Each structure stands twice: as structure tokens, then as C-alpha cells.
């Protein structure tokens, strides 16, 4: 079936996302005065779901899998569709679908919500392109395609000072890191003479005198990745942006955009700068990632532990989770058979994270929609008024903390086991310690919702609406978080197959 279809159809998940975004723009242009929040949300959700279905179908059919003719390359090798790309596209499409559904209720009284949906879809298109990029030039263009709509999305509530401030900060740090990233690419090009990953890789084997130039370039690319994944030392924007942005946007950025950073990192560092050749040239980027991972997870978790606002806590926890996922790169060692296991585990963690973290931020979106406060205390007794949503939130919190029986436990377990198998006991140990710390602040949310009494008897009277779409998105994310535990087998198999193709 897939062998008959022309090669470009392999890009259809990304094309579907892009076309949906264009269609939204078109409708908005033709009927600019129509406040059609619902139809916009429906169209975006359908587009994201269509993209998701095609992606899942491709994964099942084996498109780009080594058993079915291997990766499909297009445009002179600048674009490559393989299992890795499809795996991450599935994450992006799922998160996008959840976010646009939830946004329908969040922006119910917004003047012009149309821009939100098209920007989200365009950013998702950029992410899908990032996943298939096989050349540093495509990576940069796609990265900008993700970033530019994201800046606008963060500042989307233009009458809200927090939102605008967050957008500006995000933009400034983003512009800086884009420049650093681009400069890194140019240095790598200067040293290797190519932008295509495979050619860069063969040039890295014989760098000789240019090793220094390439090394500086690679470090700069690490910086660019650190920005996109909100890792130390380019994490400063994340708490501000996630806190100030409308909650659905925070969900989108902290789940999908972060995963997009990781797909770049996974592909660039395994295919363009293979570890063996890089270490031989004196560029041990795995060590750099080990340091970044250790600092990121520790800083993220400890900073989250002292927050008073739920959204800000989630922002720092998102930094902490970037640290966990970085183990997928940090715990690699040359020629080790365990490499695909640990990177596959990191990918599976990002998938699980896509559901549990998106769900948590969407719960915050619901709280903002209800108009209750932002701190832990404001959530006190919430479970009495909204038991279903609070149960879902409890699932997210326990899963983020890595507590059985939720999927977050499974993915962390695989990640740490993979790290230990590869000889990185210290990273796994640090991860375990951080998980214990994280249980403290995640359980504060649960405690507030279920055990504490409301500050005043009338504190929860504001909860007078049941935003159906938000509820649906939150509950769906919770169900997925639970069901990913028994269904973890296919996920980890797909992830490991995707990782295996990189080594």
C-alpha cells in the first residue's frame, strides 16, 4: 500500500496540520466579523486528529521503518521520514488536539479567537517539520516556524500585562538563542562543508585542525537545544512564559514545543555528530548533556518545591522533566547496546509527559476559567465542587511524580534502568532523588484539592460553569495517562525501534 503511494505522501501528517492552519486563516479572512469560536475549534481539532490518525496509521503500516524499505528521504536528502519522526509527530498532534479542544472554552469570550487556532496549527506544522528535518538548514527554518507563532501565542491576551510581558521575555531570549543556534550551524558548516546530517557525520570523522571550530559550533547548537527544551542555562524564559501565557498555550509550549526541541537534539546529535567520531575529535557532547541534565533536573525540582502558585510550580516541574528526558542523550556511550533502550525510554517519557503535563496545565486553564486563584491555597477543597476534574488532576500529579500505577512511573523506570544499564548509575540515582523531591510539591496540589477545607465557605461559589470541552480534554488526558500503563508495550517498542534507526 505505502509502496505505491508517491514519496511525498509520507509528509502528509505535517501537510495536514499546515493545510488546517491555512484553512482557518481563509475562513477568518472571508468572514472576519463572524465570531465562530466553535467552528474554529472543531476544524482545528479535526485537522490535528486527522494528522494523528495518519501518523498512527503510518507507524502501524511500518512507513519509514527499517523492515519496510527504511527511511523515506525527500528534497535531496534534506527531509527524512522515519519512525522517530512519526513517533514525535504523534506527540505533537495529540497535544495540539487536546489544546485546541480545551481552548474552545478558555477563549469563549475572547474577541478574536481565530488567530489562536491558526497560530497553534502553524506552530504544530513547524514541529512536524522539525521531526523530519535531515539538514541543519531545515532544522533552523522549522525551528523558527515553531518559535514565531509561539511568541505571539504567549502574548495572545494582549490586554493582560502578564501575558504581554511573558511574550516579550520569551521573544528576547528566543531571538538570542536563535542567533546562537544559527551561528553554531554556520561554524559546523565551515568545519564540515555540509548541512546534510549524513555528510556532516562523515566529515566529523576527519576534522583534524577544524575540530575546534566544529566543537564551538556544537556547543552553540547544544545551547539552542537547551533553549527549546527549557534546560539550564537557557531556562530563564520558561517560568515567566508559562506563567504569563494563557494556560492552554503553556500546555502547548511545555509539552509539544519541548518535545520538538528533543526531536532535534536526538536526531542532530546521533546522526550529524555520532558520539564515537565526536569523542575521537575531542568533542564529548554526551558529557555536556550529562552536566546539563543533572543541573536541569535538580534546579527544576528544587525550584518547583518552593513555589506558591500552581502554574509556576508546573513551569519549574517542566524544567525538571526536561532534565529527565535529557538523560536520553546524556547516558549514551559509544557502541553500547543499551543506547537505543535509554533513548527510546526518553522518547516514551516525552510521550507520556505530553499527556500528563498537558492535562495538568489544562486543569489550570479550567481553574482560570472558573476564576479561582492561582496559589495552592486557592485550590483548597476544590474536589468537593469538581470531583471528576480533581481526580484527573490527582492522576496527573501522581503520574508526574512517577508514582505507580500511572504511566509516568513506567517511563521513568525505563529511563533510569536504561541509564543504569549504560553505566550511568549516578544520573539514575540523581533522577530518583529528584523524583522523591517532586512528590512533595505534586502532592501539595492533591492535598489542597482533596484534604484541605476551602478558606471561606463561599470561596468555591465561583465554580458555576462546567466547561464541557475543557472537561473532555482533561479527562481524556487522564484516561490516556492511566491506559498508557497497560499499553506501554507498543509505545516503548515503537520508541526503541525509532531510536535503533539512529545508531
Amino acid at each position, binding site marked *: 500500500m505505502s509502496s505505491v503511494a508517491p514519496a511525498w505522501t509520507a509528509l502528509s501528517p505535517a501537510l495536514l496540520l499546515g493545510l488546517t492552519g491555512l484553512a482557518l486563516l481563509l475562513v477568518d479572512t472571508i468572514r472576519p466579523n463572524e465570531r465562530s469560536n466553535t467552528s474554529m475549534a472543531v476544524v482545528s481539532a479535526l485537522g490535528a486528529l486527522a494528522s494523528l490518525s495518519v501518523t498512527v496509521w503510518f507507524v502501524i503500516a511500518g512507513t519509514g521503518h527499517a523492515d519496510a524499505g527504511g527511511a523515506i528521504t525527500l528534497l535531496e536528502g534534506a527531509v527524512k521520514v522515519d519512525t522517530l519522526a512519526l513517533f514525535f509527530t504523534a506527540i505533537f498532534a495529540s497535544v495540539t488536539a487536546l489544546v485546541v479542544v480545551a481552548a474552545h472554552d478558555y477563549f469563549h469570550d475572547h474577541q478574536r479567537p481565530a488567530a489562536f487556532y491558526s497560530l497553534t496549527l502553524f506552530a504544530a506544522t513547524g514541529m512536524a517539520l522539525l521531526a523530519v528535518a535531515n539538514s541543519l538548514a531545515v532544522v533552523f527554518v522549522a525551528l523558527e516556524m515553531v518559535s514565531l507563532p509561539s511568541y505571539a501565542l504567549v502574548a495572545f491576551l494582549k490586554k493582560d500585562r502578564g501575558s504581554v510581558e511573558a511574550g516579550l521575555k520569551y521573544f528576547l531570549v528566543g531571538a538570542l538563542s536563535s542567533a546562537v543556534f544559527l551561528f553554531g550551524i554556520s561554524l559546523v558548516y565551515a568545519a564540515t562543508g555540509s548541512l546534510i546530517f549524513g555528510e556532516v557525520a562523515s566529515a566529523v570523522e576527519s576534522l583534524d585542525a577544524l575540530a575546534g571550530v566544529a566543537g564551538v559550533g556544537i556547543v552553540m547548537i547544544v545551547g539552542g537545544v537547551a533553549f527549546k527544551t527549557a534546560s539550564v542555562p537557557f531556562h530563564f524564559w520558561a517560568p515567566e512564559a508559562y506563567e504569563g501565557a494563557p494556560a492552554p498555550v503553556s500546555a502547548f509550549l511545555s509539552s509539544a514545543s519541548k518535545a520538538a526541541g528533543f526531536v532535534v537534539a536526538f536526531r542532530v546529535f546521533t546522526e550529524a555528530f555520532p558520539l564515537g567520531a565526536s569523542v575521537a575529535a575531542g568533542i564529548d557532547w554526551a558529557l555536556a548533556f550529562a552536566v546539563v541534565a543533572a543541573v536541569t533536573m535538580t534546579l527544576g525540582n528544587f525550584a518547583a518545591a518552593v513555589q506558591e502558585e500552581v502554574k509556576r510550580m508546573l513551569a519549574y516541574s517542566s524544567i525538571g522533566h526536561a532534565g529527565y528526558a535529557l538523560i536520553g542523550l546524556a547516558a549514551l556511550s559509544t557502541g553500547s547496546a543499551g543506547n537505543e533502550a535509554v533513548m527510546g525510554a526518553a522518547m516514551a517519557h516525552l510521550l507520556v509527559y505530553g499527556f500528563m503535563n498537558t492535562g495538568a496545565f489544562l486543569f489550570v486553564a479550567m481553574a482560570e476559567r472558573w476564576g479561582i486563584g492561582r496559589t495552592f491555597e486557592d485550590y483548597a477543597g476544590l474536589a468537593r465542587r469538581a470531583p471528576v476534574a480533581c481526580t484527573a488532576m490527582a492522576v496527573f500529579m501522581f503520574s508526574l511524580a512517577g508514582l505507580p*500505577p500511572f504511566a509516568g512511573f513506567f517511563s521513568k523506570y*525505563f529511563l533510569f534502568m536504561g541509564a543504569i544499564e549504560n553505566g550511568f548509575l549516578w544520573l539514575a540515582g540523581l533522577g*530518583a532523588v529528584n523524583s*522523591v523531591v517532586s512528590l512533595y510539591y505534586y502532592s501539595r496540589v492533591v*492535598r489542597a484539592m482533596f484534604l484541605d477545607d476551602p478558606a471561606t465557605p463561599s470561596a468555591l461559589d465561583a465554580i458555576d460553569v462546567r466547561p464541557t470541552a475543557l472537561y473532555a480534554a482533561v479527562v481524556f488526558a487522564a484516561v490516556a495517562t492511566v491506559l498508557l500503563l497497560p499499553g506501554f*508495550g507498543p509505545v*516503548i517498542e515503537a520508541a526503541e525501534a525509532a531510536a535503533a534507526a539512529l545508531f
Partner: protein
Amino acid sequence: MILEALIGFTFLAALVVLLAPNAWAGRLAFALSAVPFAGSLYLWSQFDAVGNALTGGTIAFESRYEWVEVGGRTVSWFVGLDGISLPLVVLTTFLVPLAILSAWTPVDSRQSQFYGLMLFMEANLLGVFTALDFFLWFVFWEAVLVPMYFLIGIWGGPRRKYAAIKFFVYTNAASLLMFIGFMSLTFALGDSIGSLALPEITQALADGGLETWFGISPGRMAMIAFLAMFAGFAVKVPIVPVHTWLPDAHVEAPTPVSVLLAGVLLKMGTYALLRFNFTMLPEQASTLAIPIAAIAVISVIYGAMLALAQKDLKRIVAYSSVSSMGYVLLGLVVFTEYGVGGATFQMVAHGLISGLMFMAVGVVYNATHTRMVGDMAGMADRMPVTVGILVAGAFGYMGLPLMAGFAGEFFIFVGAFGAPSLPYAPVFTALAMFGIVIVAGYLLSAMQKTLFGPFRLETDYEIGPAPFHDVAPLAVLLAAIIVLGVAPDIFFEMIRDAAMPVVEGVSVDV
């Protein structure tokens, strides 16, 4: 498939009850919880296991499906029963309906959530006792904590938040320690295991499959793992000095939750000790026999003395659980047929008796709204049936012959007294027996003060007999205790069959 059906049905029942209206959630939960009990009776009737599931015996109702693979090791859905786990499964399914019945009176808010969580906990408990794959077992083991946290934290007494969080933190930290201990053991086993199935790991350990890992020699690794797991499970049991979460949790928990906490959750700890420490690493267990026996005796005596000093009826029963668990530990460490078998039997017996005691104290509390010994007297006049059963239960606790407690303790003492592998076994046994005297002391004195004599209690309402649905579970429990005391062989046969391979795992060189 039958075990999957049992666990799956209980999960579904939890979900159904969670969505049911508060008004009849209690009745629905009771009706639904009768089904797993019937199922466990059916399992009992069809039970055909021989030997111990971990040491190569035939496993009853075995079912295994591959789940995922990690680091070259398969993780599977692997469940089955042997003579040690079946009695505990029956105990769990038997206690839950009774606990639900005893919740009808005290639980008066958010009922559907309460009963849903009770059933959710039951499903996970069944998973703990049936799982034969470490990973699966750990998932269930941890999943028990979540409903317990909410059950104590939402429906508990005045200091419920403190108690719930203390329980959660203590047991979670302990689980982590145990998890690290066990996982380092599996890493050190290297290529000699291809899965995380408990029988396979037990076999590999017995065959000396441990290798040097991260510079730790096999002998040292086994000892580190033993200590880490022992410390982890000791919190759950609990053993002095890590018992301090227990009285808080018990006192704050509502009656039905206390029943399950004392009746089943504590047995998770002793069950895991038997399965992991004493079955998998018997050599280390016998090396450490003297210190373990010493802390067992300390738990017995110190727990009983703490109970002696309490004024709150629930605290008295809670501390006496610490004491009873000391007997179980003593039975395990002596490594004799009657010691290990008696310890397992005592788990079931104590589950029934402590369940009865907590329930009876709860019924009295429902009427008096106080549990302080000094606040009331002569309750026997107003609640004759309840008090009668409470007294009978207390005698069961003291080890009155023909009741289950007697059989359990008797087996343990018989097994412990002449234990060849434990030096000074008679001394330890004699000291532990002394604990019974203290138990009799505090139970008799507390009963005399509160139950007998002229009636005295300041209330602005009349105290009468408890409603039928409060008393019925008490009577059923008492009947079960007597049946098990008169005919201990209904469980002890199969327990002994499963315990023998564990005992034979220790080579005694006298």
C-alpha cells in the same frame, strides 16, 4: 483467567460505585464486594497448588502474558496462587465486605467516593497477593497507598491530614528503599535472569547467579539488598522502631479503614518479608537471625507496653498490632515448619481478630463518640451484644484456645522453641511469650473500666443497642475466628505445604 476476572471485576466495581449516587453507594458497594468473596471461595475450592510458588512448586491459577521488555528482561502480567497467598486473598475478600458494612453508620459524606476507594484498594491488595512478577507486584504495592492516603485524609479524625501525610511519606520512602535494594539485586544477577518473574529470580539466587556489580561482591550485594528490603518492609509491618506512623494512622482513620489497615495492609509487609527476604535470601536471613529475633521480641514487648500505657481504646488495639506482628517476625526468622507456617497462619488470624477489635471499638464509638477509657463505664448494660463480641474478640487476642489467635501463636511458639538455626531460640521464645501476659493485662483492665460496672457516660441522648448492620459483621468475624481456631487445618495444611520449601532452603549445621 479467573484471577484476572477477580481483580478486573473489583476494579470495575470500584468505578461503578464511584459514579453511583451517595444515597445507595454503601449498599451497592456491599453487594458488589460479595462477588470477589464468592470468587475467592471458588478459588479455594479449586485450589491445586503444590509447594511454594517461588521455589518451583506448581502454581494454582497461573496466568502469564508478556507485557514489555526492559534492559533484556521481560516484564509480564504474571499471577498465580500458592498455599501462602491463597489464605491472604480469602482474608482480603472476606474483610472488605464486612468493612464496607461497618462503614454504613460512621461514613456520612461523599459516600460514593469512600466506597469506590475501598474497592479500588481491595483490587490492588488482591494484585499484591497474586502477582508473581516483581514489576507487577510493585505497581500494585504502591497503588495501595493512594486510596489509603485519601481514605485517611478525607474521612479521618481531627488530625487526619497529619496522619495521612505521615503514612504516605513513611511508606513511600520505605518502598523506595526496598525498590532500590531489589533492583540492585536484579542488576547483580546479570544474565542469569531473563525476566523479573519472582520464581526465576529466586531460582537464580539459589543457584548463585549473583555477580560482582559496580565493584560490589556477590555476598555483600546480597546483604545490602537484604537490609534495604528488610528496612523497607519493616515500615509496612511495622516493626519497632519504625512503627510510629501506625498509631497516628489508626487513630485518625475511620473504623472501616482501620479494619483494612490492620487486617490486610500490615500483612502486605509480613507477606513481602516472607516472599522476598526469607525465601529469596535465606542465607542472609540466617546470618542475621539473632538481631532479627531480637527486634521481633522487642516489637512484641515494647508494643505491648505501649498499649498498656494508652487511654484511647483504638490506640490500645493499634499498638497491640505492633506486638502481634512481632510474633509473626519471630515465626519467620526461626525457619522451621511450624515457625514459618505459624507466622503465615498468624497473619490471617490477626487479620480477623484485629479487624474484629477495631470494628467493635468503632461500634462503641458510634454510640458514645468517645474512645477514652476514662470517659465511660458499664457499656455492657446498654450494648450487650456488641460488648459480648468485643470481650470474645479480646480473649481471642489474648490467645484463648479454640480461637484463631491461639492456633497462630501456638504454632509460632512450637516452631520457635526448638528452632535449630536460631541460637538461644528458647530464650527468645520465652521472652516473646511473656508478651501475652502484658496483652492480657491491658486488655482486661481496659475492658473492665469501660465495659463493666455501673453505667456512666455523659451524653444528651440515650445509648441503646447498635443497629443490626453494625453488629452483624462482628458476629460473622467472631464465627470465622472460632472456625479457624477449631479447625486450623483448613488453612494450615496448604500453608505448611508452601512453607516447607522455604524452610528447606536454609541448611542448618548444628
